[in-house]
Structures are given as structure tokens and as C-alpha cells.
């Protein structure tokens, strides 16, 4: 193109346009600067305080000081769960750190093999920024000090002293107290929306969360509140300076005191030996649980560090189920231990206890033969004898007379078919069957909704659909022994010094005192009448302090097609459960012991009663008043001499009858072979 033909006026026009638009451009720039100024005013003048706080939050870092976890004590102040120092070595993840190099540094301090190294590498890489990853725990003091000297020159490595939970009694309290374990992703997720939980504490490497029992139920109270060390830090989290004036001390977790007694609890686990089952000891004056043991148990300390897969497998697959709390979660047919309850129901229904029922060893009803455990029969039985001898025929017929609903009412009144608020989770309700239940339970099958008369006799001897747990048995026995109050159990005595409500502040039982007295008389005879089903096994050897009880056998299978009920030759799994409930002293009841021995064989006296006796002795001897009573000088020179095992079956015994009311004279034929009772 040739020379552009721009005329003068056009040149002027271009200049004019430019000037106007340059003015606009300047306006735009000015507007932009004004906007920036406005924004600055907003940030620096209006919102300054907010940002000053955030800035201080950046500048000062509160390093968390974990609170010591609250102790769990027994009723006398013996520590059941405490803390011990733990020297740890940690890697602190930082942005842009060389994990490999850090691990190389570590390897010069502590032995790290290939697989461990690979695992650590993964852990550190997955950890969030600034989160410490524990490399080693429980270092010796020598190791700890050696590393501590060198940590200043090793970036990202720190050694510190934390605390770790310890259970001094190992397994004895494992089910009640539970254990603490590493925080899982699930816990973090669950805590995210829970404002009462300290999220930062949850992420602290040494922190453990309560997993079972008291540790779980009182977890928040036991945790305490984390403190902090104030430090000025840079963006990399390196401490520039410390500010001790700004430190916040940690608040230790609250102390939880249980009603349990360590001596009784330990003895209870001890007497269980290799057996599987549960023992519950309760104070029948106020409902305090003195022992609650499930056997076999496990060492809760193993869970604190984290159990290996193999260990866990071994525990969970063992047929005696150590991880199951048999005192609360195991339900069993109560067997003959239910007979006093049926007796109470009968008395309440107006049955005269002195009306005798003849036991000939079997009874034909409803198209089948109902057998007594005593093949030869017990002869004519009143209610007292029937409890003492655990006569099945008497209770088959009595149950039929009063019907299932009356039995169910009495069963609920003494504590079956319900859970109690003892502060820890895991109780199974069991089942108290009645007509109403049948309607509900068999919705799909209307034919089964009616209560068949044939179900009632079994109900009378504590079999059939009836299911109870060991705690309920203890409550039942405690209520009978107390004779007045509908006691409820209490496990937690106080939390952080605040006393928990007593189990005695409850209404009275809906039974007359005479009826309760009568049934207790039968239970006394079980243990103290030479012909009682557990006479020999129930002698405490503590002078006039005597025990009353009731034996029980819970069938685990039908015996209709089996010739003999003698369990001795059966494999463990097929043997009957062996139950015994007891209270003592008979004349002024204080302690209740319930023993369930799973597959312990027939008759509560064989496996249950001797164990109950041992535990009862510990409970009684620990009681200073009982002790004073035992040891007081006898007013008469010819004090009765008793031996624990020395009484020969069938031999004429002297009747030790000091104190309480004398049990009615037995009028029944001599008892059969020892043990093997229902």
C-alpha cells in the first residue's frame, strides 16, 4: 500500500479519541486502585481482629500435652487400671521432608529391618502433616537417653515420654473394665461431629480410646482435658522460642471407682481354673457388685499395644470364647436355680406350700413321661422339701397349677428378662416366656402362637425358652436374700469423686415377707440339710456363718433319646451347664455368689457349689463384722466342730443352728448319690 492518506482532521480525530480514552483508562486504573484500597480497608480495618487472631494462631503453636488417663480403682482403692511411663521414638511428618533419609538416620539409632522400614515408610507417607508417627515404644531408659541426646541434630525425629495404660491384674477384670486401643478411622469419623471430643487429642500418637466395658462407657470422663505448651513456631513447625507463661496444664481424667473388690474378683477367676463360665458376687444389702468374672479371660494389656492377627485369631476361635463376657452377654436356661422363683410365684398365687406332691421319679402328662432327676423319686414333697431336693415332679405340677403368666410375673419381679443400668454396655436381656411373648414371637406361624400346656412343666424347672444371664441370677438371689427390696446391681461406685446412686434406693418386692422367708428356708436346706442337694459342697467352715443356695443344671440338649444323663463321659460341648446360686450368712444375708460353669456337667453341686463356697469364703472373711462374728469366743465349751469335706454322705450330722431360724426338719427319704442334681 502507498503512503496512508491521513488528513489533518483525521489526525485530530485520532488524537481526540485517544485523549478521551486515555482519560477513561486513567479512570479505570484509578477505580482499580480504589477497589484495592477498599479491600485493604475491609481486611485491615474492619476484619483486622479476626486476622490478628489467625496470625497469632499461626505464630504460636500449642503443642498438645496429653492428660493422664483417669485411674480405675476397686472399692478399696486398689488400682485396676493405671498408667505407666512409656519412652517413645517418633517421626514428625513435615512438608517436603525426606522420609528415606530420616529412616536412614533412625536406623543408626535403633534396629530397623526391611519389612519394618517398608511399613514405617508407608505410615509416614500416609500421615497428615505435622502428625507424629510412633516408630518405637517402650524403649529402655538407656535407649531413650541415647536417642534424646542426638535428636537436636536429627530433624523430624523426636523422643518423648508418654504414658501407656496398664492393667495390673491382667485378665481378672478384662471384661468389666475392657481395654483401650489405638484410635481407628471409624472413631475419628464418629468423633468428627461430636463437639465434646478433643479432635487433636484423638490424633495424638499415644492416645488410646476405650474399647470395652468401663474404659468405653466412661471414656470421655477418663480422658481428661489436654493441656498445651505454648511455643512460637515458623511455617515449618520448628519451634523458634518457648513461652512458658502461656502453657496450659492438662486436666487428668476422672477417677472411676468400682464396687468390685480385687481380692474377691481375683479369687473368683482363680477358682474357675480352666473352666468356662461366670461368677458374680453381689452385696445383697445394697446391690454393690463385688465381683463379676467371665472365664476364661484374656490379658487386656495385649490390646493396648495392638493385638497381632494370630493372637486375635487364637482368642476369638477358642471354643471357650475368652472374648465373650459370660457374666453379662452369656444367657443360659437357669435350670433348677429357677425353682425358688416358681415357689414364690406359687405362694403368691395362693398355693399352700404344705400340700404334698408325690414324686415317684416320673409322671405321665400330656402324652409323655416327665422324669425327675431322681430316678427312684423323692416321695411325698412339700415345697420346702421340693426346693431342698430340687424335685422336678413337684415343680412340674406346681407350674401347671399356676400357669406360665404367674411364673413370668414372678420371674420379672425377681429380676429376669431385663437389663440393669450398671454403667457398662453388653448386657443381654435373656427371655422370660409367657403367653404374650408367644403371640409376638411366632407372628409368622399362628399355630404356634398359643401357649401349649406341655410347655408349662419345663418352665417350672427353669428349662424351655427361659434364658437368663449371670447378673440376673445374682439379682434374683440378692432379692430373695434381701427379703424386702427389689435391689438393682451397682458397678460404679463413684466417678471423679461423685458417688453414684446406691442399688438399695428401690421399691420393695411385690412378695410377702413370709413367702420370701419360706423360699429362703428351702434354699438354706439345700446347703445345710444333710440331704440337701449341695450340703457337702456348701459348708463354709466359718462357724455359725452359713450359706444358703440352690443348685441348677441347664441342659444344652434333649435327653429324650439318651439312656443316661450321667454326663461324665460326654465331650465338653455336650455336657450340661452347671449353676449354683448362694447367699450368706443365711441368718443375716450379706453376700450373694452366682456361679455358672459352662458344660460343667449335671448338677449344680459338682462344679458350681464348691467354687461358690470358695468365693463366698473370701467375701465373708474380708468383711470385718463377719470376721468378728466368726472369731468371737464361744459362750459354750462344746462348740460344734465342722470340717469342710469331712462329712461322709449319709452320716448323721449334727445340726449347726446358731443364729438364724432353724430350717424345717426334712421328712424325705435319704438323698441319692452326691452331685448330679438338677
Amino acid at each position, binding site marked *: 500500500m502507498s*503512503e496512508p492518506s491521513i488528513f489533518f482532521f483525521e489526525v485530530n480525530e485520532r488524537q481526540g479519541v485517544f485523549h478521551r480514552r486515555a482519560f477513561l483508562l486513567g479512570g479505570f486504573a484509578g477505580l*482499580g486502585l480504589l477497589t484495592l484500597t477498599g479491600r485493604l480497608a475491609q481486611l485491615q480495618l474492619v476484619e*483486622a481482629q479476626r486476622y490478628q487472631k489467625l496470625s497469632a494462631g499461626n505464630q504460636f503453636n500449642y503443642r498438645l500435652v496429653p492428660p493422664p488417663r483417669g485411674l480405675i480403682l476397686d472399692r478399696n482403692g486398689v488400682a485396676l487400671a493405671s498408667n505407666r511411663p512409656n519412652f517413645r521414638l517418633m517421626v514428625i511428618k513435615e512438608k517436603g521432608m525426606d522420609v528415606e533419609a530420616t529412616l536412614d538416620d533412625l536406623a543408626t539409632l535403633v534396629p530397623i529391618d526391611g519389612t519394618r522400614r517398608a511399613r514405617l515408610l508407608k505410615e509416614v507417607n500416609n500421615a497428615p502433616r505435622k502428625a507424629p508417627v510412633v516408630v518405637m515404644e517402650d524403649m529402655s531408659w538407656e535407649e531413650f537417653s541415647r536417642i534424646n541426646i542426638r535428636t537436636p541434630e536429627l530433624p523430624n525425629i523426636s523422643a518423648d515420654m508418654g504414658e501407656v495404660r496398664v492393667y495390673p491384674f491382667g485378665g481378672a477384670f478384662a471384661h468389666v473394665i475392657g481395654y483401650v486401643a489405638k484410635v481407628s478411622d471409624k472413631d475419628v469419623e464418629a468423633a468428627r461431629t461430636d463437639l465434646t471430643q478433643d479432635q487433636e487429642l484423638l490424633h495424638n500418637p499415644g492416645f488410646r480410646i476405650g474399647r470395652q466395658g468401663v474404659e468405653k462407657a466412661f471414656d470421655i470422663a477418663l480422658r481428661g482435658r489436654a493441656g498445651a505448651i505454648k511455643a512460637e513456631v515458623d511455617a515449618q513447625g520448628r519451634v523458634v522460642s518457648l513461652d512458658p507463661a502461656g502453657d496450659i496444664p492438662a486436666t487428668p481424667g476422672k477417677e472411676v471407682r468400682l464396687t468390685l473388690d480385687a481380692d474377691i474378683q481375683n479369687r473368683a477367676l482363680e477358682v474357675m481354673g480352666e473352666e468356662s463360665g461366670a461368677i458374680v458376687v453381689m452385696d445383697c444389702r445394697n446391690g454393690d457388685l463385688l465381683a463379676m468374672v467371665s472365664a476364661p479371660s484374656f490379658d487386656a494389656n495385649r490390646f493396648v499395644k495392638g493385638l497381632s492377627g494370630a493372637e486375635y485369631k487364637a482368642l476369638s476361635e477358642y471354643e471357650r470364647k475368652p472374648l465373650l463376657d459370660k457374666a453379662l452377654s452369656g444367657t443360659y436356661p437357669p435350670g433348677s436355680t429357677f425353682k425358688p422363683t416358681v415357689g414364690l410365684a406359687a405362694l403368691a398365687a395362693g398355693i399352700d406350700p404344705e400340700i404334698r406332691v408325690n414324686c415317684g421319679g416320673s409322671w405321665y402328662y400330656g402324652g409323655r413321661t416327665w422324669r425327675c432327676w431322681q430316678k427312684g423319686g423323692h416321695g411325698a414333697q412339700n415345697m420346702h422339701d421340693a426346693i431342698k431336693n430340687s424335685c422336678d415332679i413337684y415343680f412340674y405340677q406346681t407350674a401347671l397349677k399356676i400357669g406360665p403368666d404367674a411364673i413370668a410375673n414372678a420371674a420379672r419381679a425377681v429380676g429376669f428378662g431385663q437389663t440393669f443400668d450398671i454403667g457398662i454396655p453388653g448386657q443381654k436381656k435373656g427371655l422370660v416366656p409367657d403367653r404374650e411373648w408367644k403371640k409376638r414371637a411366632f407372628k409368622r406361624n399362628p399355630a404356634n402362637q398359643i401357649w401349649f400346656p406341655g410347655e408349662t412343666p419345663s418352665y417350672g424347672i427353669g428349662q424351655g425358652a427361659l434364658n437368663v444371664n449371670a447378673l440376673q441370677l445374682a439379682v434374683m438371689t440378692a432379692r430373695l436374700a434381701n427379703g424386702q427390696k427389689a435391689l438393682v446391681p451397682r458397678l460404679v461406685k463413684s466417678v471423679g469423686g461423685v458417688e453414684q446412686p446406691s442399688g438399695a434406693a428401690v421399691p420393695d418386692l411385690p412378695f410377702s415377707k413370709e413367702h420370701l422367708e419360706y423360699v429362703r428356708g428351702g434354699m438354706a436346706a439345700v446347703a445345710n440339710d444333710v440331704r440337701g442337694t449341695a450340703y457337702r459342697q456348701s459348708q463354709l467352715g466359718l462357724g455359725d456363718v452359713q450359706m444358703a443356695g440352690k443348685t441348677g443344671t441347664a441342659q444344652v440338649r434333649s435327653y429324650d433319646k439318651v439312656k443316661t444323663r450321667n454326663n461324665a463321659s460326654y465331650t465338653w460341648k455336650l455336657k450340661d451347664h452347671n449353676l449354683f446360686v448362694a447367699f450368706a450368712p443365711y441368718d443375716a444375708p450379706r453376700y450373694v455368689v452366682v456361679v455358672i460353669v459352662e458344660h460343667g456337667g449335671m448338677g449344680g453341686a459338682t462344679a458350681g457349689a464348691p467354687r461358690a463356697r470358695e468365693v463366698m469364703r473370701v467375701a465373708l472373711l474380708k468383711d470385718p463384722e463377719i470376721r468378728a462374728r466368726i472369731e468371737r469366743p464361744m459362750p459354750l465349751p462344746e462348740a460344734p466342730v465342722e470340717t469342710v469335706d469331712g462329712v461322709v454322705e449319709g452320716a448323721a450330722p449334727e445340726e449347726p443352728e446358731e443364729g438364724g431360724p432353724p430350717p424345717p426338719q426334712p421328712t424325705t427319704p435319704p438323698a441319692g448319690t452326691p452331685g448330679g442334681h438338677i
Partner: protein
Amino acid sequence: MTLSGGLSRPGERDRPIIKFMEIDWTFCLLLCLIAGSGALMLFSIAGASWEPWADKHLLRFGLYFVMMIVLAMIDLRVWFSLAYPVYIIGLLLLVAVEAIGDVSLGAQRWLSIGGFRFQPSEIMKLGVVLALARYYHGLSADSARFSWRLLVPAAMIGAPVLLVAHQPDLGTAMLIALTGLAIVILAGLSWRVIATGVIGALVAIPPFVLFVLHDYQRKRVLTFLNPEADQSGSGYHIYQSKIALGSGGLLGKGFGLGSQSQLNFLPEKQTDFIFATLAEEFGFIGCLWVLALYGVVIFMALRIASISHSHFGRLAASGVTATFALYVLINGAMVMGLAPVVGVPMPMLSYGGTVMMTVMIGFGLVQAVRVHRYTEVTSGKGSLM
């Protein structure tokens, strides 16, 4: 001005001493104040030390200041004749970068020639200004308003923008594009076209963000829209910058006492986020001071543009001003959380030689326009048309 009486003689204005006197020294003083403020901040964040930033910053500024004075003496006709060559060389270098450039931080921006590393995109910032000014110098007002001839400036802007965006350096590409647009508008583009373009851009931005941007670029945009969502990740920069600014308050935390910058919470504190450092230590008052300096510099540069007798001079000086203003506004908006994080520094305040060089060469051009404001620039030889 003061010497206007004796300047009517032909050739008198070509005397170096006269030229030297014609330089706008107030303007130069303002530049020194800005660079000095920058050096002060760099001194502070280095823990009251000249090392490693403040000394180099001042040294560079001194060097570029001398260069600016030298460039100011160069006849506007020389600038005019060099406009296209500079542009073409810049374009070729951009292509070369595409082919053989160094990759650093995931982007191909640098070119090394004999051990000297530089970014051709910086040359292009001035190249586009010069080339557009020259092209419009020979264009009638009507053609500049709206005609097929505008395809040429469109191509002049588009080619380098696309090349730079492809490196990818979105910040610089945007800067070049906006500078170019500013010149096109200043030259007299029809308002209708501008309105259409603005509406078109508004429609095109969302799909552009979603489909064309690189992941990290998109992340920055999304982070900008909701910076609090990810405070330790990509929202960290903006978040920490806002904390630094806000915590400064009215009077600031005091010289050397900005915890955000001193303790390294503020990223890129010596370069892109130097303004946040200043805001933290000197507060709202300090910010007003620096923003006022920038405002006056922009105003004076625009004034220089408008007193020029040649259209080339007007457009070149205003183009440089536009670039400078865009630097200030984009960086300011970014630091204050009003714009996404793009690698645009605060000119003269931030540490870093490249941008300072570009800006100072640009101001050399602005001063040359002032010094040669009466010079007749004819589009004789070397014209594109």
C-alpha cells in the same frame, strides 16, 4: 517547560543535554521511592539483612535506572523503526522456546543463549506495545474504529498470547492480551465491538476454565472462588496472604515484626507476596503510601502519553502504562484475595530482575516519548502498509 524559550531553534531539541533535562525527574523520583520501599521490605524479611535480596534489588534498580535514562535519549523515530523488528524477534524467540526452551517448574519459559537465561515472553510485552503503536500510527480513525484492517492487530496480539499461554504461562499471556486490548481500545475501537467482546468473553470464560485450562490452573481458579475450602493445599497462599494483610491493621506490626512473613507462613514473600509483607508490617497506612505512589506514576505516564504529538508516541507510552497498571492491579487483587493466584509480581516492589527490567525499559520508552514529544514520526520507510 523551563527551557522552552530556547527550544524553537531546529536541532536544538536533539542536543543530549537538552534531552537529559527534558526527562521527567519527578517521575524518576517516584520510581526510586517505590524501589526503595521494595528494598526496605526485602531488608526486613531477610531478618534485617541486605542479603540476600535487598542489596541485589537496589543494584538492579540502579542498573536499570541508568538504562532507562539511556533509552529515554533514543529518538522516537528509532523506536518507531525498531518496532516491527523487535516484535518479530520476540515472536521468533517464543517459537524457539516452544522448540528448545528449558522446562522449569512444569512450564517452558526460559531460553538460554550463551549462559544468559531469559524469558522471551518479557520481550513480547514491549514488542506488542511497539508493534501495535506503530501499526495504528498509520491507520485512520475510521479504520481503527472497525474495519478489516483490525485483523492485523488481532493477529499481532493473538500470536504471542497463544504461544505464551501454551508454555504455559497464563499470567503473562493474559497481561499481553490485556495490554494489547488496551491499545486497541485507546486507538479508537468502536464501543459496539467492545461491548460485544465483553459479553462474548463473559460467556466464554466458564467453558474455558472447565475445558482448556491445565489442572493446576483450574485448581487455582477454583481455589480463588473458595479459598477457605483448602487452607493447607492450594488455598494456602491466598489464605496466608489475607492473614498477613488483615493482621497488619491500621498501623502494622512494625518494621521487622511481621510474624506471617518472618516465620515463613507467607509463601513467595519476597516476590509475588511482597505487598502482603508490607501490609503486615506497615498496615493500612503503609499500603496507602505505596498505592498512592503507583497511582501517581500511572497518572504521570498517561499524561506523558497524551502530550505526545505523534500517535505512535501516545499509543506506545499508554501501552506501557497499561502494562504497568495491570501488574499493580492484578498483583494487588491476587494478594488481597480478589483474584486467583497468578505469577504476577508487584512491579519495582517485588524481588526479581525480569519484570523490573521489562518495566524499566518500558519507562525508558515512556521517557523517550516525553523527551521527543514534538518529534514528527512519519511512516515513510519501513512501513507495513
